[in-house]
């Protein structure tokens, strides 16, 4: 494990490519344990199966680390940055350590893309933070493309015990190409609806489809709120109609909103608005209630694709 001096200054964001469970546990535990020894707040968000492994390697120090199950926290990767920000804020002024593993081999294409986008946005969101961030990648099971993009989203890499800068790092505003590629086409069975100001009808269509797809009432209500918030932006920010598209399969229901608006802030919806703020709650709520949110925005318009899982999640490998 490379030395990690507790100097203040720009964030250190390290991609860690591991090959064995032992290397994983030893390295992650050393990173966290060094923080504990220095009296630094430490937070680890890992897939449930990895938590015990790291806690065992930490021994008694595990009690001084905050743990979270990444399959819950990072189910929608759009929720991770505000959670880490809350940890930093809680320990205001202190150097903090964070281990985050939002990428694992059994995640879907869309999930991997959004988790990769999250990794890229970490550089922007925490640019001024006094923090050390370690992001483990299972280099034996993840695809080449995922690893190649991790090299673009991390300024520093740790592999085989050697730490160094990543020559492929694309900077705090860089996004790997998969994050900006057009979204896959929707199926022929999709329902398409054009709206202008009748948001009540938009909500009724989403609720009906969600119930037909088998979404429980509470989650159907969540999806209605998310779609309504995005459709409200069409009314607020554009003079033209928006399009709602809904489809589902046995795993998930997906609602997509497309309009002529443009969202320029890459961190939109990833900062928790102050409770008294009179704006900024819309996309925040969308990320809080949806299982996954895909967003594409350029001069031609904005597409927001909101996913809700219907059954229990695919088991982790």
């Amino acid at each position, binding site marked *: 494990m490379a030395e990690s001096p507790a100097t203040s200054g720009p964030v250190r964001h390290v991609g860690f490519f591991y090959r064995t469970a032992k290397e994983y546990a030893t390295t992650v535990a050393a990173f966290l344990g060094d923080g504990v020894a220095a009296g630094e707040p430490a937070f680890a968000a890992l897939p449930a199966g990895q938590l015990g492994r790291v806690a065992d390697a930490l021994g008694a120090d595990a009690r001084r680390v905050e743990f979270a199950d990444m399959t819950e926290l990072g189910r929608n990767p759009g929720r991770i940055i505000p959670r880490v920000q809350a940890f930093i804020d809680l320990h205001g002024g202190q150097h903090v350590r964070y281990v985050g593993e939002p990428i694992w081999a059994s995640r879907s294409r869309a999930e991997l893309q959004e988790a990769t986008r999250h990794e890229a946005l970490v550089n922007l969101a925490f640019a001024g933070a006094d923090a050390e961030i370690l992001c483990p990648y299972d280099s034996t099971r993840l695809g080449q493309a995922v690893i190649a993009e991790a090299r673009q989203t991390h300024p520093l890499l740790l592999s085989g015990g050697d730490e160094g800068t990543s020559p492929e790092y694309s900077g705090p505003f860089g996004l790997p190409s998969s994050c900006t590629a057009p979204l896959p086409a929707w199926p022929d069975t999709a329902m398409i609806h054009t709206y202008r*100001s009748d*948001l*009540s009808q938009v*909500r009724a269509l989403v609720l009906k489809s969600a119930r037909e797809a088998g979404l429980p009432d*509470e989650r159907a*209500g*969540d999806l*209605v*709120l998310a779609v*309504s*918030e995005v459709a*409200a932006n069409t*009314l*607020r920010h554009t003079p033209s109609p928006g399009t709602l598209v809904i489809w589902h399969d046995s795993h998930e229901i997906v609602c997509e909103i497309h309009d002529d608006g443009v969202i320029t802030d890459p961190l939109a919806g990833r900062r928790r*608005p102050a*409770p*008294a*703020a*009179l*704006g900024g*709650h*819309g996309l*925040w*709520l969308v990320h*809080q*209630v949806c299982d996954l949110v895909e967003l594409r925005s350029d001069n031609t318009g904005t597409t927001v694709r909101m996913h809700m899982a219907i059954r229990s999640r695919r088991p982790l490998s």
Partner: protein
Amino acid sequence: MDLLTTSVATVESDSEPYTLVELTGEADVTNSDALREVLDTEVAKQPRTMIIDLSGLRFMDSSALHVILRANRVMDRQGGVLALASPREPVAKMLRLTAADQLIPVYPSVSEATAG
């Protein structure tokens, strides 16, 4: 039929009168200006207590929330108290997710709001 209807009453109680605003239907960006006008008018009368009864509200979006947060800000400044009563689950969840429920007291019923 309007998507959102509002009714306002001044209620005499054992202690002191309070303003009760009942919202029924769906509150969203298409009617938040109308909601703002209703609340502005009532807040301008500087009541000690204003209770918004949400029991008839099927849906509320962030535009409506912002109107309520704004009314709360003015009530605070005037030394008055705004409270929310009996939100249904989708609305209650939205108040929790935005942490608005930590800023404005939320009660299970109007009678509990008046007691609080």
